[in-house]
Each structure stands twice: as C-alpha cells, then as structure tokens.
C-alpha cells in the first residue's frame, strides 16, 4: 500500500456499506482493480465487519425495563406534584414577588442614591458637630458619640483622616453622610484632648458650622420635634423625595436605629410601580385570558387587593391600591395595547 492508497481507506470502508456515491464507487473499484494491498485491506475490513455484525446484541437484564418504568412513574408523580403546587400557589407567589420588589426598591434604592443627593442635616447633628470642637464642653461630646457607636463603628482610617481634613483642607460640600461622619468620628478626639485645642486654634469656629449646613425649615422641624415612629400601614408612595425625608424619623442620624434615612424618590417609586404593574398585568392576561385593556383595567383595579397577598396590601394604603399605582396600571395597559414591551 502506497501513499496514494491512503485516501482510499475510507472509501473502501464506506463501499462495504454501499454508502458511496456512483462517482466514488467507480473510483474505488478502479483503484481496487490495480492495487493488491487495497484489495487485502478491503477483505480484512469486510471480515471485521462480518464479525461485528454477527455478534448478537446483549440481552438486557430481566429487571431493567421494570426499573425504568418505576423510575418513570416516580418522576412523573414528582413533576405532577410540582405543577399542582405551582398552580395552587402561583398567584400568592406572584404577589409576594411583587411585594418584595416594591419593598426592596423602597429600602435599597434610596441607600444607593442618598450619598449623591445633597441632603440637609438636622440641627441636632449640626450642634453635635460644633460642640465636638468646643474644648469647654468635652463632656457633651463624650455622650452623643457613644450612642452612635452602637449603630456605627468607624474604621481606624476614618477616625484618623477626618480631623486632618478639618485642619488643612476646605470642608467638602455637606451631605447627609458626611454630616453623620462628623458626628461619629469625634469621639477619639475627646479621649485625646491635646488635639482638640489645635483644631480650635487653627480653624475659625465658623468652619465647623459650615460643615453642618443648615437644614431647611421643614427638616429642622421634623428632627427637633422627634415625631413618633411611622405606622406600618403608612403609604410608601410619595410625591417627592423631600417629603419622604421629612417623614422619616431622625433617629437614624443619632444612631438609635439602623433604618434607612429616607424613602424612595418619586422616580424610584415610579420604577417600582412599573415593575409591579407589569407583573400584575401579565398575571391577569395569563390568568383571565382577557386581553382587552379596558376590561383588564376594570378587572385589576376593581379586584380586592388582598388577592395579591398581605405583604402588598399592608404597604399600599391599608389594602387599596394608591392612585398613582392605578395610574401606572393604566399606563402599562396602554403600552400593552400599543404592543410596547
């Protein structure tokens, strides 16, 4: 067999099964007629093929089929159980997911954004920032930060760096978070009195006062009055972020509570409403098979909200959907009608 025969090996094997094209078969036969090595190869391959094809197929064990059937029955029963469970709990599960989406949006979106927003500081915080730098009243400083430490323990670099900034660099524009840092990081300076006079000597007293930017009147009022905790059934929907900030108790700023500092902004609530409204509309389209938007709107908004689960209704005006949510539903339905996603 020479190099030229190499390409005929596959053709010879294939010819044994009659799978060659007419052209390939002609070429193969022509080569075999002149090449003794390839004729021997053809005979060997045919012999191997005959041996293999004459070998009987192993018989399956007696119990194999029954074992497979038993597996199938168990698997089908398991799938049925899952489907039954899902059909029974689909609506509550959907409602729970929707409620979770709203609650998560209400809790975490403000946290994601509040650093970037310029938020006013309460007079209490402002006072703390000033009194920390007051060497004549160290005992006042020693009390408030201790309360803060329960809620927030600053890391060592934060403790060390902030006073240096107040000595040498202009204070950055005040934010809610920076104001909080001012309150919390002052404790170490109280324990090291030598550093306090240095700050006071080099910095005019007006500088710390600028750090604690005066609050808008309504915020000052909210913090100084120390309103009672917001009832659980209070609506989360809000028209503006400022309003929500005013409603949130100021306990967080003094370290008594780890609750979020502010509620969601109107944009955040709009996003959350859109998500929930889309889920509700999809749910009703799938569940009721009603696709006319006007009918759907009636079905959705007239339905008892309890269908969507206790979590959702607790946070939506004691069991009824808010006006803005209904409006969002209306908008989503309009998008559905127009074929928008």
């Amino acid at each position, binding site marked *: 067999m020479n190099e030229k025969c190499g390409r005929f*090996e*596959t053709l*010879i*094997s*294939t010819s044994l*099964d009659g*799978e060659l094209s007419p052209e390939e078969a002609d070429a193969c036969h022509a080569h075999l007629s002149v090449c003794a090595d390839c004729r021997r*190869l053809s005979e*060997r*391959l045919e*012999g*191997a*093929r005959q*041996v*293999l*094809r004459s*070998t*009987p*197929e*192993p*018989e*399956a*064990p*007696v*119990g*194999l*089929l029954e*074992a*497979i*059937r038993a*597996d*199938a*029955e168990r*698997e*089908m029963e398991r*799938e*049925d159980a899952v489907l039954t469970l899902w059909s029974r709990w689909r609506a509550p599960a959907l409602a729970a997911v929707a409620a979770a989406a709203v609650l998560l949006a209400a809790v975490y979106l403000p946290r994601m954004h509040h650093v970037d927003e310029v938020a006013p500081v309460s007079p209490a915080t402002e006072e703390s920032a000033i009194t920390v730098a007051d060497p004549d009243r160290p005992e006042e400083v020693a009390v408030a930060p201790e309360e803060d430490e329960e809620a927030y323990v600053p890391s060592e670099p934060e403790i060390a760096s902030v006073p240096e900034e107040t000595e040498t660099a202009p204070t950055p524009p005040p934010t809610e978070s920076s104001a909080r840092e001012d309150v919390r990081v002052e404790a170490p300076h109280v324990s090291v009195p030598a550093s306090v006079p240095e700050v006071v000597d080099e910095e005019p007293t007006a500088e710390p006062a600028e750090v604690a930017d005066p609050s808008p009147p309504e915020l000052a009022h909210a913090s100084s009055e120390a309103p009672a905790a917001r009832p659980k059934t209070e609506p989360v929907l809000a028209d503006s972020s400022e309003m929500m900030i005013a409603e949130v108790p100021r306990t967080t700023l003094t370290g008594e509570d780890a609750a979020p500092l502010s509620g969601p902004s109107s944009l955040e609530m709009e996003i959350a409403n859109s998500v929930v409204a889309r889920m509700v509309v999809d749910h009703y389209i799938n569940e009721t098979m009603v696709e006319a938007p006007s009918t759907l709107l009636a079905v959705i908004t007239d339905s008892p909200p309890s269908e969507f689960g206790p979590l959702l209704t607790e946070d939506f005006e004691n069991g009824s959907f808010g006006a803005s949510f209904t409006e969002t539903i209306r908008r989503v339905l309009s998008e559905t009608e127009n074929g928008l996603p």
Partner: protein
Amino acid sequence: MSGQAFVDSEGLPVSAGSADERGAERDDELLVEAAQGGSAEAFGELAERYHTSVYGIVCRMCGSEQADDLSQEIFLRALRALRQFQFHGDASFRTWLYRIAVNACINELRRRKRLADIEGPSLDEDIRTDDGTVSRVVPDETQAPHVLAERSEVQEAVQAIIGSLTPKHRAAITLVDLQQLDYEEAAKTLECPLGTLKSRLARARQQFAEKWEQYEAGKIVVNADGEATTALEEEAGEQR
C-alpha cells in the same frame, strides 16, 4: 408490551411492533407526545422498544459491568429532557435517545479514566505489548443468566477488542456495525459530519481487524475471567 392502547390522530390503534420504520417513527411520535403530556405508561412503551438497544450500546461502549445501572440512568435523563424534545425535520426519538446514551457512555469512560488516574494502575488498564496495546476486561462479577449466556469466547474477544479502541471509534463501530444504524443517523447521533463518521469508522474497523487477526492467530486470548490478554501473559500467569 403492556395492555395500554395508544391511538393516532385518526383514532387508529398504534402498533408498537410495526416493521415499517416510518410507521415506527410515527408511533414514537405519538408515544413521545403522550409522555410529554405526563403519561408514564407511554414512556414505558418507549423504554420497552429501546431498552435492549440502549443496553447494547452501553455494553459495547463501557462493558457489561454496571451496564444496567447506566442504562437506567440514561432513560431517566431522557425522561427529564423529554419536554424539550421536538419532532422537527429529520429528528427522530431513536437518534435523540442514542445520542443521550453515547454521551452518557463517553462521560462514564472519562469518569473511569479520571478515577484510574487518581487511584493508579488497575485491572482494566491496557496492556502494552510488542504488538500494540490490548485492553483487559475486568472480570464481571455479575452471575446473572443473561451475562453468563452471552459469554461465548468470540463475544468476549469482540468486546475486549472494542474496549481497546478510543471512545469515538467505539461509538462509530457500535452504532454502525453493532446497532446497524445507517451513516446519516449515526452521524446525527454523534453530532459529527458524515465525512468524519466515515473516516472514524474506517479507522475503527482497521484497528479492530488488526486485533482480530491477532486473536485468530492466538496472540490474544480470553481467559476464564473474561479478560483479553496476550498469550505470553497468559502463559506467565499459568506458570505462576
């Protein structure tokens, strides 16, 4: 065959044992649809049709040891994936099921190889001789009648030689020469081009032919334990 009767769209009873291949595929389609709808009995019918073939593929690819367990596992995988299966174009249930079987066998061979690499030399490690590499067949502990019945010397030799091929060559020779699939169906099962299948099959047949000649010449023997080994090693074993 169970007493469960399945009917086609025209209300005619489905004959599971139809000789006509297209009719059999049509029967498969109805059974698959019923199984996809949650009928365990329909899947049982499919299993009855194909469990022997699947078991044969597993035996040829991986040996008869634990072949029943692996076959059972293959059908369970097929059942779990059945909802995604669709008859379209040239897709047939048999091709799809065989593909699952071959892939499961190749994975099993890889698993065994990894295990062997970790644990070191084992009884089923290939034997290197001057005439090439010959695989051993691990003694089959199963004393079930079906295993004993098929233990003819020729069958043992065929199995031992197939076991010495690479997994891809094993798969090609198993599907075409043992399961007797046509080239197109075998290529679809192995998810490879037709030309690749032809060349793999040619190589596999050549290697099998070489070793078969060694077996016929007495250079490879199958001992009482079902091991394929060289004659020299067998003699050394007897002397010990």
